């Protein structure tokens, strides 16, 4: 038992080291991150302005509500982008930097290695998503959200992050087995996940087969839950319809993600793909 506790502690210290390194690297590039944040703000604004555009062209809609709905979709899109980017970088960035062999030779379990990446991605992603939401909602558009329950919305995003990390682990195997183009496939996965999950529209408008895929996408429940909390003022107790599926998908996706990554690592070690590029 003592040995197990000692091993666990050591593994957590190792994962903490990965988090710490990501902090240093993010800090090193903080001004680039500010630039990227401005790009994300611009991108989000182009989406939220669609509601105003429809109104201006004679459409009959609750502009404030539609803008908030679109804003939530854009923020979740940006958040998912950060999570996937960090997890894809587990391989892609290290391959580019030439550190990949050393990282994969380090005496740290792959689970803790990926957990370290994931924990930092969630912390940093939540921070960026919160900033993005506040800047667009309150600084730019002055949106009113009289019933908004921000804490439950935050909890839903946090719980959904577990599933997103599991999926991110599966995606991060792509640059491992395909050094040339694997990273780009992460964007395909991100877009595909969100298009079936009702990122800017209700899932009900999708074709039946896409609606079926939406039932197994964690982003569907994340978007529903966050919108219910912010637009309808739902509390956590009323959100089990979202939280329970998110927990179930999370419990399945993390071990599945680790398994997929481990298979990818085995493939890379068999075919000599574990080497630098660039």
């Amino acid at each position: 038992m003592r040995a197990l506790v000692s091993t666990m502690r050591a593994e957590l210290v190792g994962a903490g080291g990965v988090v710490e390194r990501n902090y240093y690297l993010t800090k090193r590039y903080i001004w680039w991150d500010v630039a990227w944040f401005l790009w994300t703000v611009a991108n989000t604004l182009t989406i939220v302005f669609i509601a105003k555009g429809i109104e201006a062209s004679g459409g009959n809609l609750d502009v404030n509500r539609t803008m908030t709905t679109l804003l939530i979709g854009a923020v979740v899109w940006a958040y998912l982008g950060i999570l996937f980017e960090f997890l894809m970088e587990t391989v892609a960035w290290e391959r580019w930097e030439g550190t990949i062999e050393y990282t994969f030779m380090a005496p740290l379990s792959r689970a803790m290695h990926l957990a370290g990446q994931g924990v930092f991605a969630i912390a940093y992603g939540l921070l960026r998503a919160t900033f993005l939401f506040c800047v667009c909602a309150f600084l730019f558009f002055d949106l009113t959200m009289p019933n908004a329950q921000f804490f439950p919305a935050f909890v839903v995003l946090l719980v959904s992050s577990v599933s997103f990390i599991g999926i991110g682990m599966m995606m991060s195997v792509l640059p491992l087995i395909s050094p040339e183009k694997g990273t780009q496939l992460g964007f395909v996965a991100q877009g595909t996940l969100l298009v079936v999950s009702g990122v800017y529209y209700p899932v009900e408008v999708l074709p039946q087969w896409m609606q079926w895929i939406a039932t197994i996408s964690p982003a569907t429940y994340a978007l529903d839950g966050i919108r219910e909390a912010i637009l309808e003022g739902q509390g956590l107790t009323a959100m089990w319809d979202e939280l329970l599926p998110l927990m179930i998908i999370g419990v399945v996706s993390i071990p599945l993600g680790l398994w997929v990554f481990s298979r990818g690592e085995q493939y890379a070690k068999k075919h000599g793909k574990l080497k630098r590029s660039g």
Partner: protein
Amino acid sequence: MNDAVVHVAELRKTFDVPEREAGLKAATKGLVRRKTKEVRAVDGISFDIAPGEIVGFLGPNGAGKTTTLKMLSGLLYVSSGDAQVLGHVPSKRERDFLRRIALVMGNRNQLQWDLPALDSFELNRSIYRIPREHFLRNRDELVELLEVGDLVKKPVRQLSLGERMKVEIVGSLLHQPQVLFLDEPTIGLDVTMQKRIREFVAEYRQRHGATVMLTSHYMADVEALCERVIVIHHGKILFDGKLGALSNTFAAWKTITAAMENGASDLSSYGEVIHRDGDLVTLRVPKADTARVTARLLAEQAVLDLNVEDPPIEDVIELVFAQENRS
């Protein structure tokens, strides 16, 4: 050898490498049916390395050196055969194994380019579970030995190649590995820096009783550090033995350098004249005839000074590869 630190038996690694002819037609055909060729990077090699031994692993580019080191470090799976390091199968990634080895590659880096080396050292402390007091002691000792006190606070990107290599070595040795795989650690470095790294490796080995496997294209590294060399070419071992025995096995001649009173003398009857610089003449003579030719020279010519040497190790290695290519 039961107590071998590194045990390799009939080790093989094959890769399927895609290949096609040039041109549009071949490229389009490749979309439907991709042709691959099996390449044997390592082809049935066997050797053992004893504790504390330092072995030079030599071969031209593409000989299979790095592939072998990667298999011994667990970064590549073997196709067949047996590889064990410190009693562990490297591909299993057992923590006890990973914490006792280090692989230093001259053309790779483990330190993040954009961070000061000290930050990356901290990551290694966490991952290798080095107690803080040991970490600080090891780090300070290595920093002092390699004289990099001023460098470890700068982003690695801003260091010269030689400086970067030195801090890379510090990072690799913080956990005091018992087995060191050094893959071209002096590549691209100037002569002074090469010498410094060589001295350091020798000192580290002496202090910690480490076992070292070294690949290098610089024979000065090998001559300074290795008593034993393994020569590999096309994935096969051509020679495994004492460095001194390499020339005995492969070079059937010695060189005689004679300082003559009259450099214009014709010495072609004594052996092949391979160099002439004023009164200094260098002859290549069959090994078996060395004593006889030397005696004749001294008796028949006005010789001021005379030196008999084995051929330079570079020439011997070149000869080994040339013989292999011909066969």
